[in-house]
């Protein structure tokens, strides 16, 4: 199908974009890579009178690595982040998640920031942001504010980004010491949204005991989910299997034509177990 008619805006500064969003309120939508939004517009699942395209704003397309963090600008393409040595070194969990998104043609256009702001609970990057305790910088009529990932995802496609605000960048904290990361998911076809998936990081001490653990689940609820109990259990000496069972016990996944809720719970335990095993193995190297 074809999208409904809309008015197109291509602001060249963040201020100009914020002004447009303020002026048009709920009738306006931000367009970044468009790989989730445009399908929804084409299928007329949604429509907006105004689209505000961020692609011509200078400065939103950079990746910067400092000692403790990797900052990814809002319109950095997923493919660019996938190839970035800064992401590979400073945010390996992000690097592991990116190849799971759609197909390479989608990642050539889709953005890291757009995927997070779109907040589809079945997508990978919100879970990565949550697992890593990323911080999100948004700019709006009242200026700039920083939102923690655990306060950012409110519901399916709903975030803490307020009226007139735009996501500017995402800071992914880097982990030090002996650590490993993995993303595991099960999808019907390669590139489909996962039935359930897990993005995990582990840190080991000198005796190879797990002393740090972060587990972000996707596809299992209306937001990405942090498996806190499983994290605590694993650092307290529980086995991978026990931690995986705890992660699955805490969730209340949806059932639909792709998988029943019960099956998703089983899949969640499997992907957590696999991801933890892979991350620990990497950390032991």
């Amino acid at each position, binding site marked *: 199908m074809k999208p409904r008619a809309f008015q197109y805006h291509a602001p060249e500064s963040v201020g100009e974009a914020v002004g447009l969003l303020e002026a048009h309120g709920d009738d306006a939508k931000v367009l970044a890579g*468009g790989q989730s939004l445009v399908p929804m517009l084409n299928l007329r699942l949604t429509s907006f009178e105004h689209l505000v395209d961020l692609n011509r704003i200078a400065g939103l397309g950079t990746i910067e690595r400092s000692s403790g963090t990797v900052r990814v600008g809002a319109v950095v393409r997923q493919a660019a982040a996938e190839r970035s040595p800064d992401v590979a070194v400073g945010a390996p969990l992000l690097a592991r998640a990116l190849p799971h998104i759609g197909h390479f043609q989608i990642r*050539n256009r889709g953005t890291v920031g757009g995927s997070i702001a779109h907040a589809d609970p079945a997508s990978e990057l919100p879970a990565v942001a949550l697992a890593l305790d990323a911080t999100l910088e948004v700019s709006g009529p009242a200026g700039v504010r920083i939102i923690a990932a655990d306060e950012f995802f409110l519901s399916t496609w709903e975030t803490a980004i307020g009226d007139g605000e735009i996501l500017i960048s995402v800071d992914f904290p880097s982990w030090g010491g002996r650590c490993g990361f993995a993303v595991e998911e099960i999808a019907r076809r390669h*590139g489909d949204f996962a039935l359930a998936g897990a993005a995990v990081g582990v840190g080991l001490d000198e005796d190879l005991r797990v002393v740090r653990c972060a587990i972000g689940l996707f596809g299992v609820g209306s937001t990405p989910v942090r498996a806190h109990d499983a994290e605590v259990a694993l650092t307290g000496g529980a086995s991978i299997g026990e931690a995986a069972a705890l992660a699955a016990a805490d969730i209340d996944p949806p059932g639909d034509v792709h998988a029943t809720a019960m099956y998703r719970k089983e899949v969640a335990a499997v992907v957590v177990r696999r991801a933890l095993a892979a991350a620990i193995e990497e950390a032991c190297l």
Partner: protein
Amino acid sequence: MTLVPINLTVNGERHAVAVEARKLLSDVLREDLHLTGTHVGCEHGACGACTVLLDGQAVRSCLLFAIQLDRSEITTVEGLAGGDGTLNRFQAAMQECHGLQCGFCTPGVVVSMTAYLADHDQPDDEDLRVALSGNLCRCTGYQGIVNAARLSSRGAAVAGGRPGSGPTA
């Protein structure tokens, strides 16, 4: 309906067109520029038939509004062969390996794999299958397409004799 003038360079040729904001690149290529090699299947990015190169990168033309692309360079399947009609390496391999039947998905496959193989020196079969996962083909079972990709990939060894002759790719 407001029409906005834009400039696109398509297959090396400059075009000035006037587009409605909501008009997809795929429709501008087909309806305004009469380049009907770019096929439109699902119109939500899943089937890959509409894949074109935007500034050298493979993208879905059904997920871009032409109005976003003023002054961009686009290559469609029509622009891949040489001016004298000489097929590119992957196109020739598709012919050699019988990589198509009805042909509907073929433009997207050819554009996608031309871009992929330009960027990847020695992909193995698993890499090729992942790369092809963004292009749906309902006829071939993919074997001929994978064989063509393997045949045309630089430095890849073709095991088991003539490509396409083995039972599996």
